[in-house]
């Protein structure tokens, strides 16, 4: 297993999570 796996998971999770959060905020604002 790659020793830097935690960094890869963290980076993708943060980016995906933020994009999802922004999408939800757009929906919540009425888009």
């Amino acid at each position, binding site marked *: 297993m*790659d020793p*830097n*796996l935690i*960094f*890869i998971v*963290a*980076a*993708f999770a*943060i*980016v*995906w999570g*933020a*994009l999802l959060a*922004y*999408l939800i905020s*757009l929906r919540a*604002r*009425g*888009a």
Partner: protein
Amino acid sequence: MTETTISRGMPFWVPRIRSWLGIAAAASFVVASVMALFWAPTDAVQGDVYRILYVHVPLAWLAYLAFVVVFLASVGWLWTRNALFDAIAVASAEIGVLFTGLFLVAGSIWAKPTWGVWWTWEPRLVTTAIMFVMYVGYLLLRGLSTDFSRRATRAAVFGIVAVIDVPIVHLSVLWANSLHQLPTVLRASGSPALDSSMLLTLMVSLFAYTLIYAYFMSARVSLEVARQERLWTRT
């Protein structure tokens, strides 16, 4: 506010294509993520951690695009006084700030195992941080006035001046000694300097994030146009 001198309105086709845009963005996002995490080969030098660049680089390019769109829309507002341009500018600035923040975070997470530090005061990182702060400032500036025309005009002037940081960010690695790597794809000296399957993955990721940007834009511009309509209804 002089309503008679300001034209407005959303092009009729934007809401119609939004759901298709969302489906295309979601599908290409899944494909790009699978390619980035599983299909692209492991880098000979960096190992698997370089896969972070498949989100970092597209977000960086889209942040550049977002701020160029702010610039163009700002010119459009000053030129035509069509309120749609102001809606496009604020939408693109908001999404650009989101993307810039995310590519800074993703870059920082990549830098720790690669460079040994989360952050260093080198030209690319500093100019990017300045770009982030400038566009946060752009959004804050819009809160200073309740008069639509005054707010849109001030923001447009700021949006035109601030775009100067975009080429500075991109070229900073060429102008000064930098820890950040030089451009790999958009090189003045020739073709992209990376493996063809890595390049394909990067291009698919770039395409997917561009569709996400377009989808976000269509939704955010619609919200802003609706807000403008409420403003004009009240006054």
